[in-house]
Protein backbone atom coordinates (compact mmCIF):
# COMPACT_ATOMS: atom_id res chain seq x y z
CA UNK A 1 0.00 0.00 0.00
CA UNK A 2 1.35 3.35 -1.09
CA UNK A 3 -0.10 5.40 1.71
CA UNK A 4 0.70 4.31 5.19
CA UNK A 5 -2.11 6.21 6.82
CA UNK A 6 -4.91 8.56 5.96
CA UNK A 7 -3.79 10.69 8.86
CA UNK A 8 -0.56 11.59 7.09
CA UNK A 9 -2.40 12.78 4.02
CA UNK A 10 -4.87 14.80 5.99
CA UNK A 11 -1.92 16.29 7.84
CA UNK A 12 -0.51 17.44 4.50
CA UNK A 13 -3.67 19.40 3.87
CA UNK A 14 -3.76 21.00 7.30
CA UNK A 15 -1.47 24.03 6.71
CA UNK A 16 -3.49 25.09 3.67
CA UNK A 17 -6.73 24.66 5.60
CA UNK A 18 -5.41 26.76 8.47
CA UNK A 19 -4.18 29.62 6.28
CA UNK A 20 -7.24 29.71 4.06
CA UNK A 21 -9.51 29.35 7.06
CA UNK A 22 -7.98 32.26 8.93
CA UNK A 23 -7.37 34.59 5.99
CA UNK A 24 -10.39 33.94 3.77
CA UNK A 25 -13.06 31.82 5.42
CA UNK A 26 -13.11 33.86 8.63
CA UNK A 27 -13.24 37.19 6.73
CA UNK A 28 -16.03 35.91 4.48
CA UNK A 29 -18.08 34.75 7.47
CA UNK A 30 -17.49 38.06 9.17
CA UNK A 31 -18.69 39.90 6.04
CA UNK A 32 -21.76 37.68 6.10
CA UNK A 33 -22.50 38.58 9.73
CA UNK A 34 -21.80 42.30 9.29
CA UNK A 35 -23.97 42.52 6.18
CA UNK A 36 -27.01 41.92 8.38
CA UNK A 37 -25.94 44.18 11.17
CA UNK A 38 -25.04 47.67 12.16
CA UNK A 39 -21.58 47.94 13.64
CA UNK A 40 -20.28 50.84 15.63
CA UNK A 41 -16.74 51.32 14.34
CA UNK A 42 -15.25 52.54 17.62
CA UNK A 43 -16.88 50.27 20.18
CA UNK A 44 -17.37 47.31 17.79
CA UNK A 45 -20.90 47.04 19.15
CA UNK A 46 -23.00 44.86 16.84
CA UNK A 47 -26.73 45.22 16.30
CA UNK A 48 -28.68 42.82 14.11
CA UNK A 49 -30.75 44.79 11.58
CA UNK A 50 -31.93 42.09 9.19
CA UNK A 51 -32.18 43.26 5.59
CA UNK A 52 -31.91 46.98 6.40
CA UNK A 53 -28.47 47.36 4.81
CA UNK A 54 -29.67 45.83 1.57
CA UNK A 55 -32.76 48.05 1.53
CA UNK A 56 -30.53 51.05 2.06
CA UNK A 57 -28.28 49.88 -0.79
CA UNK A 58 -31.21 49.76 -3.19
CA UNK A 59 -32.13 53.33 -2.24
CA UNK A 60 -28.55 54.50 -2.58
CA UNK A 61 -28.01 56.47 -5.76
CA UNK A 62 -24.25 55.76 -5.67
CA UNK A 63 -24.81 52.03 -5.34
CA UNK A 64 -27.12 51.95 -8.35
CA UNK A 65 -24.58 53.96 -10.34
CA UNK A 66 -21.81 51.56 -9.26
CA UNK A 67 -23.86 48.53 -10.30
CA UNK A 68 -24.62 50.10 -13.66
CA UNK A 69 -21.01 51.12 -14.31
CA UNK A 70 -19.64 47.74 -13.27
CA UNK A 71 -22.13 45.97 -15.52
CA UNK A 72 -21.38 48.20 -18.52
CA UNK A 73 -17.64 47.91 -17.99
CA UNK A 74 -17.73 44.13 -17.58
CA UNK A 75 -19.80 43.58 -20.71
CA UNK A 76 -18.07 46.14 -22.93
CA UNK A 77 -14.50 45.24 -21.92
CA UNK A 78 -15.02 41.47 -21.98
CA UNK A 79 -16.77 41.52 -25.36
CA UNK A 80 -14.11 43.79 -26.87
CA UNK A 81 -11.32 41.56 -25.55
CA UNK A 82 -12.89 38.33 -26.77
CA UNK A 83 -13.74 39.67 -30.23
CA UNK A 84 -10.34 41.26 -30.71
CA UNK A 85 -8.66 38.17 -29.28
CA UNK A 86 -10.64 35.95 -31.66
CA UNK A 87 -9.57 38.03 -34.63
CA UNK A 88 -5.92 38.00 -33.55
CA UNK A 89 -6.05 34.24 -32.94
CA UNK A 90 -7.34 33.65 -36.47
CA UNK A 91 -4.56 35.89 -37.82
CA UNK A 92 -1.91 34.05 -35.80
CA UNK A 93 -3.25 30.61 -36.68
CA UNK A 94 -1.81 30.98 -40.19
CA UNK A 95 1.91 31.12 -40.74
CA UNK A 96 3.48 34.53 -41.48
CA UNK A 97 7.04 35.87 -41.51
CA UNK A 98 8.35 36.34 -37.99
CA UNK A 99 5.47 34.58 -36.23
CA UNK A 100 7.92 33.10 -33.73
CA UNK A 101 8.92 36.59 -32.56
CA UNK A 102 5.47 38.14 -32.73
CA UNK A 103 3.91 35.77 -30.21
CA UNK A 104 6.00 36.72 -27.15
CA UNK A 105 5.77 40.41 -28.11
CA UNK A 106 2.00 40.58 -28.34
CA UNK A 107 1.63 39.18 -24.82
CA UNK A 108 3.76 42.01 -23.35
CA UNK A 109 0.75 44.03 -22.13
CA UNK A 110 -0.49 41.20 -19.91
CA UNK A 111 2.98 40.77 -18.42
CA UNK A 112 2.99 44.38 -17.17
CA UNK A 113 1.44 45.24 -13.84
CA UNK A 114 -1.90 47.04 -13.86
CA UNK A 115 -0.22 50.03 -12.23
CA UNK A 116 2.39 50.29 -14.98
CA UNK A 117 -0.35 50.00 -17.61
CA UNK A 118 -2.38 52.69 -15.88
CA UNK A 119 0.60 55.02 -15.64
CA UNK A 120 1.33 54.70 -19.36
CA UNK A 121 -2.27 55.32 -20.38
CA UNK A 122 -2.83 58.08 -17.86
CA UNK A 123 0.01 59.90 -19.60
CA UNK A 124 -1.46 59.14 -23.02
CA UNK A 125 -4.82 60.52 -21.91
CA UNK A 126 -3.33 63.81 -20.66
CA UNK A 127 -5.31 66.65 -22.22
CA UNK A 128 -2.43 68.97 -23.12
CA UNK A 129 0.58 66.71 -23.55
CA UNK A 130 -0.91 63.26 -24.05
CA UNK A 131 -0.09 61.24 -27.14
CA UNK A 132 -3.72 60.57 -28.07
CA UNK A 133 -4.73 64.22 -28.21
CA UNK A 134 -1.54 65.07 -30.08
CA UNK A 135 -2.50 62.53 -32.72
CA UNK A 136 -6.12 63.72 -32.81
CA UNK A 137 -5.05 67.35 -33.26
CA UNK A 138 -2.59 66.33 -35.97
CA UNK A 139 -5.44 64.57 -37.78
CA UNK A 140 -7.53 67.73 -37.46
CA UNK A 141 -9.93 66.18 -34.95
CA UNK A 142 -11.00 67.79 -31.67
CA UNK A 143 -8.99 66.86 -28.56
CA UNK A 144 -10.85 64.77 -25.99
CA UNK A 145 -11.19 64.96 -22.20
CA UNK A 146 -10.46 61.22 -22.01
CA UNK A 147 -10.73 60.85 -18.26
CA UNK A 148 -12.75 63.94 -17.38
CA UNK A 149 -15.68 63.60 -19.75
CA UNK A 150 -18.37 61.69 -17.82
CA UNK A 151 -19.64 60.06 -21.03
CA UNK A 152 -16.19 58.90 -22.07
CA UNK A 153 -14.21 58.11 -18.90
CA UNK A 154 -15.54 54.58 -18.33
CA UNK A 155 -14.79 53.63 -21.93
CA UNK A 156 -11.31 55.12 -21.68
CA UNK A 157 -10.64 52.78 -18.78
CA UNK A 158 -12.21 49.89 -20.71
CA UNK A 159 -9.76 50.65 -23.53
CA UNK A 160 -6.81 50.27 -21.13
CA UNK A 161 -8.20 46.98 -19.85
CA UNK A 162 -8.77 45.79 -23.40
CA UNK A 163 -5.21 46.63 -24.34
CA UNK A 164 -3.86 44.83 -21.29
CA UNK A 165 -5.97 41.68 -21.41
CA UNK A 166 -6.86 41.00 -25.05
CA UNK A 167 -3.66 38.89 -25.26
CA UNK A 168 -5.12 36.51 -22.71
CA UNK A 169 -8.38 35.98 -24.64
CA UNK A 170 -6.16 35.60 -27.71
CA UNK A 171 -4.03 32.86 -26.09
CA UNK A 172 -7.07 30.86 -24.95
CA UNK A 173 -8.75 31.03 -28.36
CA UNK A 174 -5.50 30.31 -30.20
CA UNK A 175 -5.09 27.15 -28.12
CA UNK A 176 -8.60 26.18 -29.23
CA UNK A 177 -7.79 26.79 -32.88
CA UNK A 178 -4.63 24.73 -32.62
CA UNK A 179 -6.53 21.79 -31.18
CA UNK A 180 -8.74 21.50 -34.29
CA UNK A 181 -7.62 18.45 -36.30
CA UNK A 182 -5.83 19.54 -39.48
CA UNK A 183 -8.01 17.45 -41.81
CA UNK A 184 -11.18 19.29 -40.77
CA UNK A 185 -9.87 22.72 -41.68
CA UNK A 186 -8.28 21.33 -44.83
CA UNK A 187 -11.52 19.65 -45.85
CA UNK A 188 -13.28 22.99 -45.56
CA UNK A 189 -10.68 24.62 -47.79
CA UNK A 190 -10.86 21.87 -50.40
CA UNK A 191 -14.65 22.11 -50.49
CA UNK A 192 -14.11 25.60 -51.75
CA UNK A 193 -16.08 27.18 -48.95
CA UNK A 194 -15.51 30.92 -48.81
CA UNK A 195 -13.14 31.79 -45.94
CA UNK A 196 -15.75 33.73 -43.95
CA UNK A 197 -18.43 31.05 -44.46
CA UNK A 198 -16.01 28.27 -43.57
CA UNK A 199 -15.04 30.19 -40.45
CA UNK A 200 -18.63 30.83 -39.33
CA UNK A 201 -19.93 27.31 -40.01
CA UNK A 202 -16.94 25.09 -39.37
CA UNK A 203 -14.26 26.78 -37.27
CA UNK A 204 -16.37 28.87 -34.90
CA UNK A 205 -18.56 25.97 -33.66
CA UNK A 206 -15.37 23.98 -32.96
CA UNK A 207 -13.82 26.69 -30.77
CA UNK A 208 -17.11 27.77 -29.21
CA UNK A 209 -16.05 26.37 -25.84
CA UNK A 210 -12.79 28.34 -25.72
CA UNK A 211 -14.56 31.54 -26.75
CA UNK A 212 -17.10 31.06 -23.95
CA UNK A 213 -14.38 30.29 -21.40
CA UNK A 214 -12.37 33.33 -22.45
CA UNK A 215 -15.49 35.47 -22.08
CA UNK A 216 -16.33 34.08 -18.63
CA UNK A 217 -12.75 34.40 -17.40
CA UNK A 218 -12.53 37.99 -18.58
CA UNK A 219 -15.94 38.81 -17.08
CA UNK A 220 -14.88 37.42 -13.70
CA UNK A 221 -11.80 39.61 -13.85
CA UNK A 222 -13.27 42.83 -15.26
CA UNK A 223 -15.99 42.61 -12.61
CA UNK A 224 -13.31 43.25 -9.94
CA UNK A 225 -12.22 46.57 -11.51
CA UNK A 226 -10.51 48.67 -8.85
CA UNK A 227 -6.85 49.56 -9.46
CA UNK A 228 -7.32 51.33 -12.79
CA UNK A 229 -10.22 53.41 -11.52
CA UNK A 230 -8.44 54.24 -8.28
CA UNK A 231 -5.37 55.69 -9.97
CA UNK A 232 -6.89 57.08 -13.18
CA UNK A 233 -10.13 58.77 -12.15
CA UNK A 234 -10.76 57.99 -8.47
CA UNK A 235 -14.34 57.14 -9.47
CA UNK A 236 -15.04 60.50 -11.07
CA UNK A 237 -15.91 62.72 -12.81
CA UNK A 238 -18.98 62.77 -10.56
CA UNK A 239 -19.56 59.05 -10.20
CA UNK A 240 -19.09 58.19 -13.88
CA UNK A 241 -16.47 55.52 -13.16
CA UNK A 242 -17.63 54.44 -9.71
CA UNK A 243 -17.51 50.62 -9.57
CA UNK A 244 -18.70 48.09 -7.01
CA UNK A 245 -15.13 47.55 -5.76
CA UNK A 246 -14.74 51.32 -5.32
CA UNK A 247 -18.09 51.43 -3.52
CA UNK A 248 -17.03 48.76 -1.00
CA UNK A 249 -13.69 50.51 -0.56
CA UNK A 250 -15.27 53.91 0.10
CA UNK A 251 -17.86 52.63 2.56
CA UNK A 252 -15.37 50.38 4.34
CA UNK A 253 -12.31 52.58 4.50
CA UNK A 254 -13.50 56.18 4.11
CA UNK A 255 -17.01 56.34 5.58
CA UNK A 256 -16.36 53.50 8.07
CA UNK A 257 -19.83 52.11 7.45
CA UNK A 258 -19.15 48.42 8.02
CA UNK A 259 -22.75 47.31 7.51
CA UNK A 260 -23.11 48.87 4.07
CA UNK A 261 -19.58 47.86 3.03
CA UNK A 262 -20.26 44.25 4.03
CA UNK A 263 -23.68 44.14 2.38
CA UNK A 264 -22.27 45.38 -0.93
CA UNK A 265 -19.26 43.07 -0.58
CA UNK A 266 -21.65 40.16 -0.11
CA UNK A 267 -23.49 41.11 -3.30
CA UNK A 268 -20.14 41.14 -5.13
CA UNK A 269 -19.13 37.79 -3.67
CA UNK A 270 -22.38 36.15 -4.79
CA UNK A 271 -22.10 37.48 -8.35
CA UNK A 272 -18.46 36.44 -8.58
CA UNK A 273 -19.29 32.99 -7.16
CA UNK A 274 -22.04 32.46 -9.71
CA UNK A 275 -19.67 33.28 -12.57
CA UNK A 276 -16.91 31.08 -11.11
CA UNK A 277 -19.25 28.09 -10.71
CA UNK A 278 -20.41 28.53 -14.29
CA UNK A 279 -16.78 28.60 -15.39
CA UNK A 280 -15.87 25.51 -13.34
CA UNK A 281 -18.83 23.62 -14.82
CA UNK A 282 -17.79 24.51 -18.36
CA UNK A 283 -14.18 23.47 -17.76
CA UNK A 284 -15.10 20.18 -16.13
CA UNK A 285 -17.64 19.33 -18.80
CA UNK A 286 -14.87 19.69 -21.36
CA UNK A 287 -12.56 17.43 -19.37
CA UNK A 288 -14.92 14.48 -19.49
CA UNK A 289 -15.40 14.47 -23.23
Amino acid sequence: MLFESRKQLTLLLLPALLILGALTLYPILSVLVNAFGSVDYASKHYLFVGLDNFRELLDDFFFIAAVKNTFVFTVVASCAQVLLGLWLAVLFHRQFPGRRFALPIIIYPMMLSTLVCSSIWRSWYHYDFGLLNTVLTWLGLPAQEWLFNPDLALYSIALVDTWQWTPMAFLIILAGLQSIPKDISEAAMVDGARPLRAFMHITLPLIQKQVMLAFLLRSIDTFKLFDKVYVMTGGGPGNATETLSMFVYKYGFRFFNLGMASASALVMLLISMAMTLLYARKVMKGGKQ
Partner: protein
Amino acid sequence: MRRYLHGLTVWMMVGLFVLPVVWMVATAFKSPGEILNAGARLWPEQISLSAFERLLAGEFPLLIGNTLLIALMATGLSLLVSFFSAYALVRYRFPAKLDGAFLLAVLVIKMMPPIVVATPLYSLINQLGLLNTKLGLVLCYQVYTLPFCIWMLLGFIRDIPLEIEEAAAMDGAHLFKRLGFVVFPLCAPGLVATAIFSMILGWNEFLFSLLFIHTPDKFTIPLYLANFMTEDGTAWGELMAAGLVSSLPMLALAGYMQRFLLRGFSLGLK
Protein backbone atom coordinates in the same frame (compact mmCIF):
# COMPACT_ATOMS: atom_id res chain seq x y z
CA MET B 1 0.26 38.93 -52.49
CA ARG B 2 -2.41 37.82 -50.01
CA ARG B 3 0.29 36.25 -47.89
CA TYR B 4 2.08 39.58 -47.59
CA LEU B 5 -1.15 41.39 -46.79
CA HIS B 6 -1.79 38.89 -44.01
CA GLY B 7 1.71 39.29 -42.59
CA LEU B 8 1.44 43.07 -42.78
CA THR B 9 -1.90 43.11 -40.94
CA VAL B 10 -0.59 40.92 -38.13
CA TRP B 11 2.58 42.94 -37.66
CA MET B 12 0.57 46.17 -37.62
CA MET B 13 -1.59 44.76 -34.84
CA VAL B 14 1.51 43.59 -32.97
CA GLY B 15 2.94 47.09 -33.39
CA LEU B 16 -0.23 48.64 -32.02
CA PHE B 17 -0.16 46.40 -28.97
CA VAL B 18 3.49 46.99 -28.23
CA LEU B 19 3.44 50.76 -28.90
CA PRO B 20 2.61 51.76 -25.30
CA VAL B 21 5.51 49.60 -24.10
CA VAL B 22 7.86 51.19 -26.64
CA TRP B 23 6.62 54.61 -25.56
CA MET B 24 7.38 53.74 -21.92
CA VAL B 25 10.94 52.75 -22.79
CA ALA B 26 11.50 55.83 -24.97
CA THR B 27 10.04 58.26 -22.41
CA ALA B 28 12.19 56.81 -19.65
CA PHE B 29 15.26 57.87 -21.64
CA LYS B 30 14.08 61.38 -22.50
CA SER B 31 15.26 64.50 -20.71
CA PRO B 32 12.56 66.28 -18.67
CA GLY B 33 12.46 69.14 -21.17
CA GLU B 34 11.96 66.92 -24.17
CA ILE B 35 9.03 64.98 -22.75
CA LEU B 36 6.50 67.79 -22.86
CA ASN B 37 7.89 69.75 -25.80
CA ALA B 38 8.49 67.00 -28.30
CA GLY B 39 4.83 66.45 -29.10
CA ALA B 40 4.35 63.13 -30.77
CA ARG B 41 8.02 62.39 -31.32
CA LEU B 42 8.42 58.82 -30.16
CA TRP B 43 12.15 58.31 -29.88
CA PRO B 44 14.30 60.61 -27.67
CA GLU B 45 16.48 63.10 -29.53
CA GLN B 46 19.22 62.50 -27.06
CA ILE B 47 19.39 59.56 -24.69
CA SER B 48 19.18 60.94 -21.18
CA LEU B 49 19.68 58.95 -18.02
CA SER B 50 18.52 61.75 -15.73
CA ALA B 51 15.23 60.03 -14.91
CA PHE B 52 17.06 56.92 -13.73
CA GLU B 53 19.54 59.00 -11.75
CA ARG B 54 16.76 60.82 -9.91
CA LEU B 55 15.02 57.52 -9.32
CA LEU B 56 18.09 55.87 -7.85
CA ALA B 57 18.78 58.85 -5.60
CA GLY B 58 15.33 58.53 -3.99
CA GLU B 59 13.77 55.71 -2.04
CA PHE B 60 13.02 53.65 -5.14
CA PRO B 61 15.89 51.11 -4.69
CA LEU B 62 14.81 50.53 -1.10
CA LEU B 63 11.22 49.93 -2.23
CA ILE B 64 12.37 47.47 -4.89
CA GLY B 65 14.05 45.51 -2.11
CA ASN B 66 10.92 45.74 0.05
CA THR B 67 8.63 44.51 -2.69
CA LEU B 68 11.00 41.73 -3.72
CA LEU B 69 11.30 40.50 -0.15
CA ILE B 70 7.54 40.50 0.38
CA ALA B 71 6.87 38.72 -2.92
CA LEU B 72 9.59 36.15 -2.15
CA MET B 73 8.29 35.41 1.34
CA ALA B 74 4.67 35.20 0.19
CA THR B 75 5.70 32.85 -2.63
CA GLY B 76 7.87 30.69 -0.38
CA LEU B 77 5.08 30.19 2.12
CA SER B 78 2.47 29.51 -0.56
CA LEU B 79 4.69 27.12 -2.46
CA LEU B 80 5.53 25.03 0.58
CA VAL B 81 1.95 24.81 1.80
CA SER B 82 0.46 24.22 -1.64
CA PHE B 83 3.01 21.52 -2.53
CA PHE B 84 1.80 19.39 0.37
CA SER B 85 -1.88 20.04 -0.15
CA ALA B 86 -1.80 19.61 -3.94
CA TYR B 87 -0.05 16.27 -3.44
CA ALA B 88 -2.66 15.08 -0.97
CA LEU B 89 -5.47 16.21 -3.29
CA VAL B 90 -4.00 14.41 -6.30
CA ARG B 91 -3.07 11.13 -4.63
CA TYR B 92 -5.94 10.59 -2.26
CA ARG B 93 -9.71 10.38 -2.80
CA PHE B 94 -11.25 12.02 0.20
CA PRO B 95 -14.60 10.69 1.43
CA ALA B 96 -17.83 12.34 0.26
CA LYS B 97 -16.04 14.20 -2.56
CA LEU B 98 -14.59 16.56 0.00
CA ASP B 99 -11.50 17.09 -2.15
CA GLY B 100 -13.61 18.36 -5.04
CA ALA B 101 -15.53 20.68 -2.75
CA PHE B 102 -12.28 22.01 -1.30
CA LEU B 103 -10.85 22.69 -4.76
CA LEU B 104 -14.01 24.47 -5.82
CA ALA B 105 -13.89 26.63 -2.70
CA VAL B 106 -10.26 27.45 -3.44
CA LEU B 107 -11.24 28.43 -6.98
CA VAL B 108 -14.01 30.69 -5.69
CA ILE B 109 -11.50 32.40 -3.39
CA LYS B 110 -9.04 32.84 -6.25
CA MET B 111 -11.69 34.42 -8.46
CA MET B 112 -13.48 36.63 -5.94
CA PRO B 113 -12.77 40.37 -5.87
CA PRO B 114 -10.19 40.89 -3.09
CA ILE B 115 -12.04 43.95 -1.81
CA VAL B 116 -14.73 41.55 -0.50
CA VAL B 117 -12.51 40.40 2.37
CA ALA B 118 -10.66 43.69 2.84
CA THR B 119 -12.49 45.09 5.88
CA PRO B 120 -12.39 41.91 8.04
CA LEU B 121 -8.81 41.28 6.95
CA TYR B 122 -7.95 44.79 8.08
CA SER B 123 -9.25 44.19 11.59
CA LEU B 124 -7.56 40.79 11.71
CA ILE B 125 -4.17 42.19 10.70
CA ASN B 126 -4.74 45.08 13.10
CA GLN B 127 -5.45 42.72 15.99
CA LEU B 128 -2.29 40.78 15.18
CA GLY B 129 -0.40 44.08 15.33
CA LEU B 130 0.82 43.58 11.77
CA LEU B 131 -0.55 46.71 10.10
CA ASN B 132 2.12 48.56 8.15
CA THR B 133 4.52 45.59 8.26
CA LYS B 134 5.98 43.28 5.64
CA LEU B 135 4.76 40.21 7.48
CA GLY B 136 1.20 41.52 7.40
CA LEU B 137 1.34 41.84 3.62
CA VAL B 138 2.94 38.40 3.27
CA LEU B 139 -0.04 36.96 5.13
CA CYS B 140 -2.60 38.95 3.13
CA TYR B 141 -1.02 37.96 -0.17
CA GLN B 142 -1.82 34.33 0.68
CA VAL B 143 -5.37 35.19 -0.34
CA TYR B 144 -4.08 35.46 -3.93
CA THR B 145 -1.00 33.25 -4.05
CA LEU B 146 -2.10 30.18 -2.10
CA PRO B 147 -5.24 29.35 -4.15
CA PHE B 148 -3.24 30.05 -7.27
CA CYS B 149 -0.34 27.76 -6.29
CA ILE B 150 -2.67 24.94 -5.23
CA TRP B 151 -4.47 24.91 -8.60
CA MET B 152 -1.30 25.33 -10.60
CA LEU B 153 0.64 22.57 -8.82
CA LEU B 154 -2.31 20.20 -9.06
CA GLY B 155 -1.73 19.84 -12.81
CA PHE B 156 2.01 19.35 -12.49
CA ILE B 157 1.73 16.71 -9.76
CA ARG B 158 -0.96 14.86 -11.73
CA ASP B 159 1.58 14.43 -14.53
CA ILE B 160 3.88 12.39 -12.29
CA PRO B 161 3.27 8.67 -12.90
CA LEU B 162 2.13 6.79 -9.80
CA GLU B 163 4.36 3.84 -10.77
CA ILE B 164 7.55 5.74 -9.99
CA GLU B 165 6.30 6.44 -6.50
CA GLU B 166 5.15 2.86 -6.06
CA ALA B 167 8.61 1.64 -6.97
CA ALA B 168 10.09 3.99 -4.40
CA ALA B 169 7.60 2.77 -1.82
CA MET B 170 8.63 -0.86 -2.49
CA ASP B 171 12.18 0.14 -1.70
CA GLY B 172 10.90 1.33 1.64
CA ALA B 173 10.66 5.07 1.08
CA HIS B 174 7.96 6.49 3.31
CA LEU B 175 5.71 9.43 2.50
CA PHE B 176 8.00 12.34 3.34
CA LYS B 177 11.03 10.68 1.81
CA ARG B 178 9.07 10.16 -1.42
CA LEU B 179 7.83 13.73 -1.36
CA GLY B 180 11.35 15.08 -0.95
CA PHE B 181 13.29 12.74 -3.22
CA VAL B 182 10.80 11.62 -5.86
CA VAL B 183 7.89 14.04 -6.24
CA PHE B 184 9.81 17.25 -5.61
CA PRO B 185 12.55 16.72 -8.25
CA LEU B 186 10.03 15.43 -10.80
CA CYS B 187 7.83 18.51 -10.62
CA ALA B 188 10.68 20.99 -10.18
CA PRO B 189 10.00 22.71 -13.54
CA GLY B 190 6.35 23.10 -12.53
CA LEU B 191 7.39 24.47 -9.16
CA VAL B 192 9.62 27.04 -10.87
CA ALA B 193 6.84 28.18 -13.20
CA THR B 194 4.40 28.37 -10.29
CA ALA B 195 6.91 30.31 -8.21
CA ILE B 196 7.46 32.84 -11.01
CA PHE B 197 3.73 33.44 -11.43
CA SER B 198 3.25 33.75 -7.70
CA MET B 199 6.16 36.22 -7.54
CA ILE B 200 4.49 38.27 -10.27
CA LEU B 201 1.21 38.26 -8.30
CA GLY B 202 2.99 39.55 -5.21
CA TRP B 203 5.15 42.00 -7.14
CA ASN B 204 2.10 43.58 -8.82
CA GLU B 205 -0.36 43.51 -5.93
CA PHE B 206 -1.98 46.85 -5.22
CA LEU B 207 -5.17 46.72 -3.13
CA PHE B 208 -3.86 45.19 0.10
CA SER B 209 -0.68 47.24 0.10
CA LEU B 210 -2.80 50.37 -0.42
CA LEU B 211 -4.97 49.47 2.57
CA PHE B 212 -2.40 48.05 4.99
CA ILE B 213 0.75 50.13 4.37
CA HIS B 214 0.75 53.73 5.55
CA THR B 215 4.34 55.04 5.60
CA PRO B 216 6.15 55.83 2.32
CA ASP B 217 9.37 54.03 3.30
CA LYS B 218 7.40 50.77 3.48
CA PHE B 219 5.55 51.19 0.16
CA THR B 220 5.56 48.46 -2.44
CA ILE B 221 6.35 49.37 -6.05
CA PRO B 222 2.70 49.53 -7.26
CA LEU B 223 1.87 51.77 -4.32
CA TYR B 224 4.87 53.97 -5.15
CA LEU B 225 3.68 54.29 -8.76
CA ALA B 226 0.14 55.15 -7.65
CA ASN B 227 1.41 57.81 -5.28
CA PHE B 228 3.73 59.23 -7.90
CA MET B 229 0.90 59.44 -10.45
CA THR B 230 -1.56 61.23 -8.23
CA GLU B 231 1.00 63.64 -6.77
CA ASP B 232 2.77 64.74 -9.92
CA GLY B 233 0.74 64.58 -13.11
CA THR B 234 3.48 65.02 -15.70
CA ALA B 235 6.80 63.76 -14.26
CA TRP B 236 6.58 61.08 -16.90
CA GLY B 237 10.30 60.46 -17.25
CA GLU B 238 10.69 59.20 -13.72
CA LEU B 239 7.32 57.46 -13.76
CA MET B 240 8.18 55.55 -16.93
CA ALA B 241 11.70 54.80 -15.70
CA ALA B 242 10.18 53.33 -12.53
CA GLY B 243 7.63 51.41 -14.60
CA LEU B 244 10.34 50.10 -16.91
CA VAL B 245 12.66 48.97 -14.13
CA SER B 246 9.81 47.24 -12.32
CA SER B 247 8.65 45.49 -15.52
CA LEU B 248 12.05 44.32 -16.78
CA PRO B 249 11.94 40.89 -15.13
CA MET B 250 8.50 40.18 -16.59
CA LEU B 251 9.36 41.41 -20.08
CA ALA B 252 12.50 39.30 -20.05
CA LEU B 253 10.54 36.24 -18.96
CA ALA B 254 7.68 36.70 -21.46
CA GLY B 255 9.13 34.26 -23.98
CA TYR B 256 9.80 31.60 -21.35
CA MET B 257 6.46 32.05 -19.55
CA GLN B 258 4.43 31.93 -22.74
CA ARG B 259 3.86 28.17 -22.62
CA PHE B 260 2.73 28.35 -18.99
CA LEU B 261 0.51 31.41 -19.43
CA LEU B 262 -2.64 29.49 -20.22
CA ARG B 263 -2.24 27.26 -17.20
CA GLY B 264 -1.33 30.21 -15.05
CA PHE B 265 -4.09 32.62 -15.88
CA SER B 266 -7.02 30.34 -16.56
CA LEU B 267 -6.74 27.82 -13.69
CA GLY B 268 -7.78 24.41 -14.81
CA LEU B 269 -7.79 25.23 -18.49
CA LYS B 270 -4.83 23.92 -20.43
